[in-house]
């Protein structure tokens, strides 16, 4: 039973990781927690839902979802956040804007699509495999594999391409990056695009796993993924991955040991503990105060 829950926990955890990475990417570059990440996650799911409802197929669904979610995220930065940066607004102004944007997106989804759960086809549903008395269904394998591949691609982009180098440079020191000729605006745009794509893919998989899409779906999972990102050290990519897996497994353990009612509280308890014991997370760096 425990092992079974662990398998379930890992497959959910990798999805948390994927969403957490979205938070980390934006935080790394802008030192801002994008509170609307959960909302655009939900947006991605709804785009996929629309495409599927139009009977264009699952592959077009995920592709269109990725593209449109990336565009929405980039527009959010260009239209709302970038002007605030130019004005040298306070951090709290940007934070409030992300909250506002989240609210707008979520409620528009509610108005357009209605707040009930809508059915989403199950992904890759070819049955269950039994391995050492563990039941793993094919959807979970699909999710695990896809997530690992996406995370792998992301890591490749960030650590092996010149774009990734530009991103890492900007993250370390925006001023210096500009001085060596990096187009910081583009870097930020790409970051938001990648963040949006990872959210859309995660949404697609969760929608497929639970067969449900609804406007509020980003809220709770967004919080869990945020906890995962903080646990791993927000801004650090591998931290988000590890954080996601830990949260997923911890949830599974909590369900096994304490019962299903405590599932959703786990992530929040983890967040709480991290903020009290080691706010920088496992892999996070301590920032020195500049006087």
């Amino acid at each position, binding site marked *: 039973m425990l092992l079974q829950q662990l398998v379930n926990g890992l497959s959910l955890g990798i999805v948390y990781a994927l969403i957490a990475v979205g938070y980390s990417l934006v935080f790394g570059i802008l030192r801002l927690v994008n509170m609307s990440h959960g909302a655009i996650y939900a947006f991605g799911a709804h785009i996929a839902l629309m495409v599927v409802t139009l009977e264009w197929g699952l592959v077009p669904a995920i592709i269109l979802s990725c593209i449109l979610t990336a565009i929405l995220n980039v527009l959010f930065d260009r239209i709302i956040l970038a002007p*605030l940066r130019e004005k040298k*607004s306070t951090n709290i*102004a940007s934070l409030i804007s992300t*909250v506002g944007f989240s609210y707008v997106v979520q*409620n528009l989804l509610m108005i357009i699509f209605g707040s009930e759960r809508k059915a989403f086809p199950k992904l890759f549903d070819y049955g269950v495999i039994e391995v050492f008395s563990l039941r793993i269904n094919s959807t979970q394998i699909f999710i695990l594999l896809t997530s690992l591949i996406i995370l792998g691609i992301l890591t490749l982009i960030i650590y092996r391409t010149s774009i990734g180098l530009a991103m890492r440079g900007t993250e370390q020191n925006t001023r210096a990056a500009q001085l060596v000729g990096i187009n910081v605006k583009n870097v930020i745009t790409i970051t938001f695009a990648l963040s949006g794509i990872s959210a859309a893919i995660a949404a697609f998989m969760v929608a497929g796993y639970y067969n449900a899409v609804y406007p509020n779906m980003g809220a709770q999972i967004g*919080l869990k993924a*945020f906890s995962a990102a903080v646990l791993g050290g927000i801004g650090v990519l591998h931290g988000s991955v590890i954080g996601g897996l830990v949260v997923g497994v911890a949830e599974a353990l909590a369900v096994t040991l304490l019962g299903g009612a405590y599932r959703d509280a786990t992530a*929040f308890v983890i*967040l709480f503990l991290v903020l009290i014991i080691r706010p920088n997370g496992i892999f996070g760096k301590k920032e020195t105060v500049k006087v």
Partner: protein
Amino acid sequence: MKKSNTIYVKLKEFYWKNEKHFISALIAILVSLYFLNLNQYFYRVLTMICLYSILALSLNIVLGYTGRLSLGHAAFYSIGAYVSAIMQVRYNIDFFIALILGVIIAGFFGFLLGLTTMRLSGSYLAITTIGFLEVIRMVLLSWESVTNGAFGIQNIPRPKFFGYELTTANGGIYLLALVALIASVYFSAALNDSKLGRNLRAIKNDDFATTMMGVNTNRYKVIAFTISGAMAGLAGTIFASMNRYIDPNTFNFDTSMLIVCICILGGMGSIKGQLLGALLLVSFPEILRSFALYRFVVYGLILLVMMRFRPQGLLGSLSTRPYKFPRGVKVKEEGIGGEPL
């Protein structure tokens, strides 16, 4: 610096000179509404405007003064309401005592949240307050023996003031809410001009520098949350008696969002702004009934538009009014004005 419009400036100076009279007149008008025997619906709306003003004033202490975003203020609203309701329904305690208990316990939870979040800032703080709201909601939902769980608390009695029942129909609840609002405004103003208020505002201006001047910023952050929680709890106790029914979902994230919206629209840090914001945002869904569905989208848009184009909100610009020196302070120069150079 832009040239000041002299008529505008003269009007402002006229207002400042006679502020006490203006305020008394306003209070008189608001009180007279009670005597006008208005429709029950109007009294309800007026009461809600008063209550949301109080809530916004409470959030203003944390957000407007110390500059920290709390998205969980609905929790204090609900704690005040629940404590008051439970005291009255289960233990037959008089409303006014239940009110005091509600305020104290809400303030205590404000203290707890303040303590928990005193080292946090920005997003971490905001998310923790959201978590706090969730935790309170879950407790209210599951502690059935005390809170009646999902069924909520029904038939909350009407408050009795020396035997006279205060209802929405006779406008008594409105008067009660108005009195609470006046007290809250007075308190906020007193706070603003005091050492406590200055230190809170200093935290928003430059937390680090405030620390380096010897001020214990953590302590003040906790104090801010405590006072804020108590004030929001006050609104909750009155709401419970007006609505006569509350359940764990009455006070949710949307409520918190509305309070934040009011605070920001009106102008963070401005007392008048909170009142104006509440007036606008509570009456708007009533007036534009057909657009009520979109009101949440509007709240989100308000946050976006305000932060982008007018972060100080409607009334939150720095006042050009000369500083009010305490009586007895000897000042060499006459007429030390606040005009910018």
